[in-house]
């Protein structure tokens, strides 16, 4: 069963869990990426690299406005046009205007989470423009009319058979299960689009402030074509995706490639510092950079600035046992996995709009262990839970339950009496149901839906302790 991206959270999770193909597809791919990451980071001084990148990103955040201004100045002097977009509508309008001014009909796009975040394709299509995704994974899910389910591997949730079906249906591909044949077909189709497009849109993996350079990394070369072949090139970047210097760019590039796919370097790293200059043989005539806030400064002000250091490598998704079980669509948000569970509510106008996400984690900490920027994701998730409680978004029954528990546990006497009652009750009940408790009333039925529960011990530890003391004649 496919996950309906727009269904309520509980339904999405149920759909994801009841699809055995989803789990096997996702866990196989994430395991492979995790292993590759591990090998690649181990082959260098991985811990040192993480520390260096962390320090660099902290420095950027401390001097955020200055670096943004420096970037703007340098981009402008390189001949780029810089646009500032506060929210989704602004960003959509800016890109749409650029397209209309240039009479663009066909737009080719390189993979970009920032444009997913602002639902750009949808907006452009509504304006009568044709948008073609050119990253193979994105191309597949665009054909299938689905959102990406992983930050770097958008089609991770699909098996080869399912992709073949999409190609047969949408591209009239003759039946085949051979990846090379399928890839060749996509390549041939995309090549035509690159030649015909007036405008190219990409995201931005990072921008270098001191030189005014937009960097995108890809493995398929589509990013290079998107940024160099069409007459107009637009890069949409989140305002946190900054590095101060070329040396810092090298650091981040290493951390990104190694953490994302385990490559020492991606096949392509395309750097654009401005439009075609006189005498250049190729390159776009116009370069536009859209600096997107869309909640980032709000997130910083809310105390979740640490998550703005994220370089979108996806390593935390690959390491996350929850993500492995449910995949990306169950999160119901552009960004998923542990980082998505943090930044989706933190970027949103109201944290409570995504109240389930901070709870969609066992807080195991596997994400923090692999994060190239050492973002303390479990602590941020705990902070979000606390914010949800502060804002009164958490269920009333839960609040009542936790408050009662805290009061009851504040007295030894109450604690001991409750323990005795639970022991007698649970043992009688377990005795009737054959040794184990197989059903408990709500909210504990969540437990017994999938697991047995052993009754409380007949006598507590403290009882033993007192007995022993008595036997030894102590008081």
């Amino acid at each position, binding site marked *: 069963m496919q996950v309906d991206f727009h269904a309520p959270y509980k339904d999405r999770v149920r759909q994801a869990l009841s699809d055995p193909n989803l789990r096997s597809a996702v866990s196989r791919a994430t395991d492979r990426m995790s292993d590759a990451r591990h090998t690649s980071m181990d082959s260098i001084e991985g811990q040192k690299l993480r520390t260096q990148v962390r320090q660099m990103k902290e420095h950027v955040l401390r001097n955020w406005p200055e670096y943004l201004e420096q970037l703007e100045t340098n981009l402008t002097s390189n001949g780029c046009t810089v646009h500032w977009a506060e929210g989704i509508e602004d960003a959509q309008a800016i890109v749409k205007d650029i397209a209309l001014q240039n009479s663009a009909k066909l737009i080719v796009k390189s993979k970009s989470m920032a444009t997913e975040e602002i639902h750009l394709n949808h907006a452009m299509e509504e304006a009568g423009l044709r948008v073609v995704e050119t990253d193979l994974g994105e191309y597949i899910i665009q054909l299938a009319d689905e959102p990406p389910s992983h930050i770097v591997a958008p089609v991770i949730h699909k098996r080869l058979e399912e992709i073949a079906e999409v190609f047969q249906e949408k591209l009239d591909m003759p039946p085949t299960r051979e990846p090379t044949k399928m890839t060749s077909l996509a390549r041939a189709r995309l090549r035509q689009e690159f030649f015909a497009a007036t405008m190219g849109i990409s995201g931005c993996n990072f921008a270098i402030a001191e030189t005014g350079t937009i960097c995108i990394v890809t493995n398929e070369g589509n990013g290079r074509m998107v940024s160099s072949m069409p007459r107009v090139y637009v890069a949409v970047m989140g305002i946190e995706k900054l590095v101060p210097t070329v040396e810092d760019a090298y650091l981040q590039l290493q951390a990104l490639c190694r953490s994302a796919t385990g490559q020492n370097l991606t096949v392509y790293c395309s750097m654009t510092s401005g439009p075609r200059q006189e005498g250049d043989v190729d390159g776009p005539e116009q370069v536009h950079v859209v600096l997107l806030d869309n909640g980032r400064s709000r997130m910083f002000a809310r105390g979740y600035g640490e998550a703005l250091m994220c370089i979108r490598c996806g390593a935390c998704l690959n390491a996350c046992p929850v993500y492995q079980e449910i995949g990306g669509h169950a999160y119901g948000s552009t960004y998923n996995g542990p980082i998505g569970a943090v930044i989706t509510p933190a970027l949103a106008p109201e944290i409570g709009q995504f109240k389930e996400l901070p709870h969609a984690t066992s807080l195991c900490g596997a994400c923090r262990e692999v994060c190239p920027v050492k973002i303390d994701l479990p602590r941020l998730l705990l902070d979000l839970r606390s914010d949800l409680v502060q804002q009164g978004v*958490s269920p009333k029954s839960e609040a009542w339950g936790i408050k009662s528990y805290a009061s009851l546990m*504040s007295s030894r006497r109450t604690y001991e009496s409750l323990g005795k009652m639970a022991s007698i009750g649970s043992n009688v009940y377990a005795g009737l149901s054959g040794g184990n408790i197989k059903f408990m009333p709500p909210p504990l039925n969540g437990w017994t839906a999938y*697991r047995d529960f052993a009754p409380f011990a007949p006598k507590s*530890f*403290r009882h033993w302790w007192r007995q022993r003391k008595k036997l030894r004649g102590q008081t």
Partner: protein
Amino acid sequence: MHKATFEQRPQRVALFVTCMVDMLYPGVGIATCELLEKNGVEVVFPEEQTCCGQPAFNAGYRDEARKLARRFLSIFGPLVESGEVDAVVAPSGSCATMTSHFFEAIFQESKELDLSHQAERLASVTFELTEFLVDVLGLVDTGAHLQGKAVYHPCCHLYRELGVDEQPRKLLDSVEGLEMVDLPHAQDCCGFGGLFAIKNSGISAAMGRAKARSAQQSGADAIVLCDVSCMTHINGILSREGVSCRAHHIAEVLNDHLGSSLTTPSTPPPAQADHPRRWGE
């Protein structure tokens, strides 16, 4: 986390038994107590202790967590500061994480700096059981015997927050007769996660079943771990799935509570991994 170094071998420790061990698995508490005493450490059990407040903290209820944290500090703080005990020992990585990592943080948040400092001091002498046995007492072999094949599951708080992993493995390696085999994907969370097991019970159980599959793949008779919360979850899954393998707390293995052999009985044992045989004494 800065841990105290002891110039002299600690003489007395306060046992933070944890509410789950107290009420659900007293055998684990007894084993902990006896292991410490066998190795020349006197155990004090402050009877005022209840719960450290982790469920409230985990769910986002910081005020309620602080209420119980204050209470905990008022019980254990004076014992340590008066020198009556040298350290606090808990048979749980998770509860030790709560008191030694999160207490300090929640009092910093509420700007109760006295309490935050007190929590910091307490944290420096708070140890998870195996951490205390190996790092502080220098123990490697507890002299335990047990026939069978087992895997070690590193519980998340113990492994990732406290950084304790070698210690329990060392102790298990020296149990006579016990063959320790590798658990595939050992570092994957079992899916317990406190309130997560209730709120997101479907995902939690799926993770638990993945852990059960790994244990079965390893061919082990038992899973040994250092936290009874994860043990309750794993055993609940194993029992429901009809798998005979069970999870056991390390204290019971190290203190010979499980009999002489792990070999699977013909009918699967109940979800409870506790063996109240010590009650005859």
